[in-house]
């Protein structure tokens, strides 16, 4: 799968909720090649920040050749991005990583996102052909970015940290409360959520695919900055250390030691 370095153009930048922004980028080749669960590395225009920021693809429009990213402002890079006006040029590398493997057919898939792990679930939900349900965890009712858009793809169950909307608690609580059944989970979100899902799926004998995060430098597998412990010796590292940017970010939960 080819990786492109491109100068993408900001088509729009919209604030979705407090600190959460949505940028649509016009690309040359990236949109054509990308699949759900992959990410791009976004370079900052300010040159004191030298490393690109990994951001998941939230939507991929192959006709318009655009991609959409949704991100939370947490530091200098994302705060820079949040200020981009339409027509700003942004250097990006992508598509990166493996993405979700949709070749296996499941009876029902739970598409699960937590917090800023929700964005990639939108494109994923669009691409899953079979039966699916969506479970998302937000901080609170007024933080529910992308909710309406997800609802267009499937039934959506919500958990909120403060109980201000639907289930009070985690996505696991929402699954239990709504008695959701499925044979596979595809998820992205904070580590505690992924750990809980891994355990839940193991107990309930469900397949579980999770997207991991780690600090990255190269984004393409050369620096060994972004590894995660794996059960098996992987072909590349020989030391149970798979590269999240290359062998991941999506892993079969059974294969990683998180």
């Amino acid at each position, binding site marked *: 799968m080819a990786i492109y370095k491109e100068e993408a153009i900001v088509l729009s930048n919209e604030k979705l909720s407090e600190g959460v922004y949505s940028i649509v980028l016009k690309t040359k080749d990236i949109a054509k090649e990308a699949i759900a669960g992959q990410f791009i590395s976004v370079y900052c225009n300010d040159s*004191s920040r*030298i490393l690109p920021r990994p951001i998941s693809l939230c939507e991929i429009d192959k006709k318009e050749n655009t991609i959409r990213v949704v991100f939370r402002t947490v530091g200098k890079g994302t705060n820079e991005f949040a200020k981009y006006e339409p027509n700003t040029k942004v250097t990006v590398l992508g598509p990166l990583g493996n993405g979700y493997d949709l070749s296996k057919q499941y009876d029902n898939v739970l598409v699960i996102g937590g917090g800023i792990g929700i964005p990639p679930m939108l494109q994923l939900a669009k691409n899953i052909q079979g039966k699916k349900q969506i479970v998302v965890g937000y901080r609170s009712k007024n933080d529910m970015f992308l909710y309406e858009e997800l609802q267009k793809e499937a039934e959506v169950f919500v958990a909120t940290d403060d109980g201000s909307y639907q289930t009070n608690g985690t996505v696991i609580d929402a699954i239990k409360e709504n008695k959701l059944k499925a044979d596979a989970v595809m998820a992205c979100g904070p580590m505690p959520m992924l750990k809980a899902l891994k355990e839940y799926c193991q107990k309930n004998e469900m397949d579980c695919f999770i997207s991991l995060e780690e600090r990255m430098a*190269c984004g393409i597998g050369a620096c*060994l*900055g972004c*590894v995660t412990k794996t059960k098996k010796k992987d072909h590349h590292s020989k*030391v149970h250390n798979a590269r999240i940017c290359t062998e991941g970010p999506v892993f079969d939960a059974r294969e990683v030691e998180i």
Partner: protein
Amino acid sequence: MNTCVNFCGINFKNPVITASGTFGSGQEYSQFVDLNRLGGVVTKGVANLPWKGNPTPRVAEVYGGMLNAVGLQNPGIDTFCKRDIPFLQNYDTNIIVNVCGHTTEEYLEVVERLASENVDMLEINISCPNVKEGGIAFGQDPKAVFDITQQIKKIAKQPIIMKLSPNVTDIKEMAKAAEAGGADAVSLINTITGMKIDINRRSFVLANKTGGMSGPAIHPVAVRMVYETASAVNIPIIGMGGIVNYEDAIEMILAGASLVSVGTANFMDPQSTIKIVEGIEDYMRRYNVSDIKELVGAVHER
């Protein structure tokens, strides 16, 4: 116009090579750059056995640079010889293998194993700040530098480059010790030890607490050390540290480097190496430099 560099008897088509640990064994970046256009590829450090490296987070960004504490994760010399060397042999470029170890014996084992391999030079990493044993411990004491250089030199079949640490009071002393031990060349600088603290969690950003700083922020220190080293030894120098464009590369060459390694710049732009090759050519044309040799160490007072 001649951009070729004869370095320890080996011909480099141009002075631009990669910096160990930032370019894998070339495979990943070969999607962005034609490896045939590089003077050489320096591989990630390799040890006698697989090393699993440090826990994550291993990298962090800092102002104008980055910290890494990868800790020399590598698949070991066997996999390396089977997979990485054959890959690089597909290209018309020099292969320089970066060697690491916890003990002198481990270094020697790798060097011995490489004797029969088709590689052009060995770069001996005695300056990694991110491993508990070995690495930098060998590179901060002239006596230790001398000893390990001498022992490696005895058995090495390829020319050896000793890679020096900037975390020392006097880089000239270290370079002289390497020269006295028989090194064919020295390369510098490895990373400068730094630290980043997350003020919200009040914890270290890197699992290893400290990391090696690289990138444009360290360039002036690297230029100074290359200049000092050039005045102290007669063996040739590979200059590195924060080279991100051709201007930085020329600066390093004027300071006294015969070859330049490009590291962190690859993360900033995967095509950096090629752009630097082209920039050096343009510079030579603009200033009518017929042989790149003329530039090595050519800095002068105003």
